[in-house]
């Protein structure tokens, strides 16, 4: 019952969007109420869904329901739409609605002075609607529609201050990079649909629930099982491009740091908590495909691992607080992608949930700092804000500890599970080492941000002040899950033991541990190495940026100038891209453009068709003389032609509609004779 109507959740923000742009955009308070109210109802509905599915869960019904209908039917081909409510989508619904609700409350304070206040809220509502539609989509085709819609909203919101040249450029960059990924995803979906056309049920074309059975059928087809594996690998690799662009994985990560040109609430909602995680969500949904294609799966793991450490090294040297957090987001998304690639999609989803809360908290905290310091983003101009902004300071510190992986805060539990999963590839394998080192780097750069911003002397010029209540309230609200949310997925049987994994995957056989065993487990190498590296990172940051025992600037100049330069310039990826585009791709495609577009299409096809249309239209219109006698003459002529055709109708009659009836009639005639 509750499940059947869950399409209400995405519809409400869509209605709010329409109400705002067509109705109440003149009143700020009504705009905020409409938008926040819509997503608030969605949040409550999602909570109800969660409780109902939890109570059903124990009765082995798995809280699963789907509703599919044919949308378009052309001959044998059909496209379907519907809703799918299962633990995975309920989890995502909760994450999206809760973060979106808090961010919208926050935006009310943050955007108060902005002239585009109502526009901002309407876009936020549209984004929320698309993102919620994405997570309850029942098949790949429907997901792709919403995938594009969230991309559009992201574009609109990055370029929200489009009068700033950098913002306009950043939105364009995000759009173009995402096109590359979406193109791959679309090709993958089309190829998959082509190979599996006849394997789906009547209303379940490309649906997620049938995915596993269909992939098995595809790979185990009687003719050439090898070909099935090759095609599924191709499909998986093409589809990977979509999550790579959306979740900012190397080498398509370049748009995410630039996307910080958008307003800070957007960075928190879209570019940290929800939309960028959609890639991970899609990978989790498509897990059966990757399971059947080991090469593609390994590629996923490698890309994730590389992105994790690569972005972490860049985050070490960024001075813009939002850019540093953006690279941190890339790195954490790398963890999740890596985890899916290792076959552990449940820990990936777990990290997605915890990360959504503490990263939203960190971004909103940074927004509070930026707001309090009058739109200053450079960390060199912060310092000593802990006294001036006590609430922001406390909540930001909680977020920092959570992401650094200090037990028992949220980040620790999920990160530990991912690193534990990497152990499955073999003891002390290279992915494990990369993940562990990244954990250390994460702790270091996050505390670097914290110390540089909140401790020491204030280095800025403008008068800093604490933000208003509508900004600090979401911070306080987000601090709670940042501390506690990790406990839902812990192995500790004190707290239920692997609740989250069991919820997502009823067939999951986890190992819940008692407290004493858990402590013993903590001292196995796969747990103690990343943990101690994290603490080392924290201590190093403490010594360098708080105690200042080491003069960091001169130290870098003497020993690490090359490495620092590479890190500060983001490994020169942007420069390499612009070189490739300007020097190689543009000249090549200019040639293509001239031959194909200019000569073939424009000159021959377009102009040719116009001429044909012009000439035939002109000659046909000569008949239209306005003289009734001409019209009647043509009428009679037409009638004569039709009469002739009727008389020699035998040319048409070789095709019988009702042959039996004809035979009957003929036999009746013979009987008479």
């Amino acid at each position, binding site marked *: 019952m509750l499940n059947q109507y869950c399409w209400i959740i995405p519809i409400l923000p869509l209605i709010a969007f329409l109400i705002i742009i067509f109705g109440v955009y003149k009143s700020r308070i009504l705009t905020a109420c409409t938008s926040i109210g819509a997503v608030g109802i969605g949040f409550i509905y999602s909570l109800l869904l969660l409780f109902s599915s939890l109570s059903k869960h124990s009765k082995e019904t798995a809280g699963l329901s789907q509703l599919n209908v044919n949308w378009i039917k052309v001959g044998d081909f059909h496209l379907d739409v519907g809703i799918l409510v299962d633990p995975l989508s309920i989890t995502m619904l909760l994450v999206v609605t809760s973060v979106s609700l808090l961010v919208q409350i926050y935006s009310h304070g943050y955007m108060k002075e902005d002239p585009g206040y109502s526009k901002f809220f309407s876009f936020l509502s549209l984004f929320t609607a698309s993102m919620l539609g994405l997570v309850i989509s029942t098949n790949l085709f429907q997901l792709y529609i919403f995938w594009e819609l969230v991309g559009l909203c992201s574009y609109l919101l990055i370029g929200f201050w489009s009068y700033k040249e950098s913002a306009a450029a950043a939105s364009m960059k995000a759009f173009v990079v995402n096109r590359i990924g979406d193109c791959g995803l679309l090709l993958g979906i089309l190829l998959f649909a082509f190979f599996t056309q006849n394997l789906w049920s009547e209303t379940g074309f490309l649906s997620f629930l049938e995915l596993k059975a269909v992939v098995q059928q595809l790979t185990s087809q009687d003719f050439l099982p090898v070909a099935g594996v090759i095609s599924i690998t191709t499909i998986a690799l093409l589809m990977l491009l979509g999550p790579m662009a959306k979740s900012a994985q190397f080498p398509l990560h370049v748009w995410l740091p630039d996307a910080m040109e958008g307003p800070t609430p957007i960075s928190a909602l879209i570019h940290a908590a929800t939309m960028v995680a959609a890639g991970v969500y899609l990978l989790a949904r498509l897990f059966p495909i990757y399971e059947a294609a080991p090469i593609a799966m390994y590629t996923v793991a490698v890309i994730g691992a590389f992105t994790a450490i690569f972005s972490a090294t860049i985050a070490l040297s960024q001075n813009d607080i939002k850019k540093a957090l953006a690279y941190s987001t890339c790195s954490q998304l790398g963890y999740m992608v890596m985890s899916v690639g290792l076959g552990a999609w449940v820990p990936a989803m777990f990290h997605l949930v915890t990360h959504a809360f503490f990263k939203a908290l960190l971004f909103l905290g940074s927004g509070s700092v930026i707001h309090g310091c009058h739109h200053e983003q450079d960390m060199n101009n912060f310092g000593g804000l802990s006294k001036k902004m006590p609430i922001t300071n406390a909540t930001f510190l909680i977020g920092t500890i959570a992401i650094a992986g200090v037990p028992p805060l949220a980040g620790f539990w999920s990160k530990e599970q991912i690193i534990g999963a990497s152990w499955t590839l073999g003891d002390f394998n290279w992915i494990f080492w990369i993940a562990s080192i990244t954990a250390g780097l994460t702790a270091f750069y996050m505390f670097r941000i914290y110390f540089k911003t909140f401790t020491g002397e204030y280095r800025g010029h403008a008068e800093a002040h604490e933000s208003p209540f509508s900004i600090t309230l979401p911070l306080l609200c987000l601090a709670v899950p940042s501390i506690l949310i990790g406990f839902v997925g812990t192995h500790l049987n004190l707290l239920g033991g692997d609740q989250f994994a069991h919820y997502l995957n009823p067939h999951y056989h986890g190992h819940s541990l008692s407290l004493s065993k858990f402590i013993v487990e903590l001292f196995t190498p796969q747990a103690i190495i990343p943990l101690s590296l994290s603490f080392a990172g924290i201590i190093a940051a403490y010594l360098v940026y708080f105690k200042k025992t080491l003069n960091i600037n001169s130290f870098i100049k003497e020993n690490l100038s090359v490495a620092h330069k590479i890190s500060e310039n983001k490994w020169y990826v942007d420069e390499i891209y612009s070189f490739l585009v300007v020097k190689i791709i543009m000249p090549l495609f200019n040639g293509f453009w001239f031959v194909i577009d200019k000569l073939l299409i424009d000159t021959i096809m377009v102009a040719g068709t116009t001429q044909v249309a012009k000439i035939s*239209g002109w000659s046909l219109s000569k008949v239209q003389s306005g003289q009734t006698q001409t019209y009647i003459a043509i009428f009679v002529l037409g009638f004569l032609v039709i009469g002739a055709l009727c008389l020699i109708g035998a040319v048409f009659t070789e*095709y019988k509609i009702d042959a039996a009836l004809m035979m009957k009639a003929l036999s009746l005639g013979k009987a008479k004779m």
Partner: protein
Amino acid sequence: MDFNSLKTIVDNNDILSVFPELCILLSMAFSLFISLSEKHSKNAWIVNTPLITLGLSFCILLFPQLESTESIYSFKGTYLTDSFSLLLKGLILLILLCLNFGTATFLENKDITSKGEFQFLILGASLGASFLVSTNDLVLLFIALETLSLSSIALVAYVKKDSLSGEAGIKYLLNGAIASACLIFAISLFYGIALGNTTFSAFPNMLLGKNGVLFNSVFPYIIFSLGMSLVVAAIAFKLSLAPFHLWSPDVYNGAALPSTAFLATVSKIAAFGIFCRLGWTLFASSADSFGIWCNIFALLAIASMFIGNFVGARQVFRSRGGSLKRLFAYSSVAQIGYIITGVVIGTDWTAGQSMFYLMMYVIVNLGAFLSLIKVENWFHKNDIKEINSDSLDAIKGLFKVKPKTTIFLTLCVGNLAAVFPSMLIAKLVLLDASIHASLKSIFPEGLVKAFNLGASNFAVTPQVSLTMAFMILFSSVIAIFYYVALIKKMFVDDPHSEVYEKAKLEKKGTTFSLSSTAINFACLVLFFSSIALSVYPEFWIGKVANPAAQSLLSSGKNDLITVLNESVARNKEQ
């Protein structure tokens, strides 16, 4: 008697089966009565509204109660109520309702003395149209068609002071007279062959002869061919299929906008109804005659798509700006070609697609005309003399002058061009079907059998349907050109200087006016109808259009089977 079901009531009362027509008749009486009063005559639409709504709700309520294979006969079998007639009747009434709202604005502006009679004529024509879609008898067919035609002629010639209007009326009258003559001659021939019967049910008799023999001599075959070609010419004239379309650009051009809107929608629905009914009951009684009928109309459809779109595109090329009404006339010639495609392919599911296409077409077409009425009204109110409100220049830069109307018009025109989903899907299905029907001519027979290509029985021959598929593709491209040219004119071009000046002078605060509220309401109704059809097309095709098409097919089949049984029995007696 079970009074809970509307169906049972209708089944038992002949009078109730013509309930929608009674509603129209009653509102005709009211509008005639109101037109006596000089002061109130322009408000006849207010009285008509509840009655038309009543008729519409009758159709909507009865539709789901009928099985798709069920038909209710009344008035001694001359009048037929089934899903098909209910669907078309519902469409007619919906269009009539919106047109009713739209005419109020038109009547306010023109210098017309007797305003109530305009409503009266529209209602009268609709009455004919409404009878036409559920007629089961040749005499009723002729009377209904004449009711429709004569009222339409008066409508076209309504603006007496406009010489173009009078010219159009005369042209329509002369051309229409020939078509009517053709039809009545054909009816007399059929009456002769069918041995004095006029109901459609008697027609299998006509084909099978007195003793159930199919054309046992040459003479009846010639008579039959003559009758058939006369009927085809008459119906093609009503549908304005090429080459019988020549009257339509002139008549559309001369008539006032609401009359043109009527001709392009209600008249088309009625003609489509009688076209399907005759084809699928009368000529479908033997495979041969059905094949001939389908193929001939397929050829006409191909010609219509070609001529309609190419000559229509010419309006845009014209240096001094073509006429909008002429453009829509040619567009309707082409569109009717698309609409009948599904019917002439000859299977019930393609006919269902055709009906969906028709539903969408009349809604967006009326929407386009109502927008044009609004534009004309605005021109009239602001006394703009330099450009004619009918020329293509009039809508230049319309977005800067009337943004809401422009967006609505864009929606309608975009749908006509089939670039928006619902009509695109309908067109895609028709294309798919015609390609399937033509597969036999492309692939060798062995391959067709092996891969089950073109497995269904299509009435149309492969060669014709191949041409049709190509023509759908090719002419759609040309069509998109001129429809998008309209959209480009509205959004990209700058408005005419005089229009722009007047628009700037216009007061911001709008005064309330009943007639403009009415036309806006009509636009809103059409807007939501087209959105509802676009968002979930499969529902409308599966639940509304396909049952209607099936009922059409089954009513023909049922008749044939009864007649065959009768003739078998008669043979045994002998």
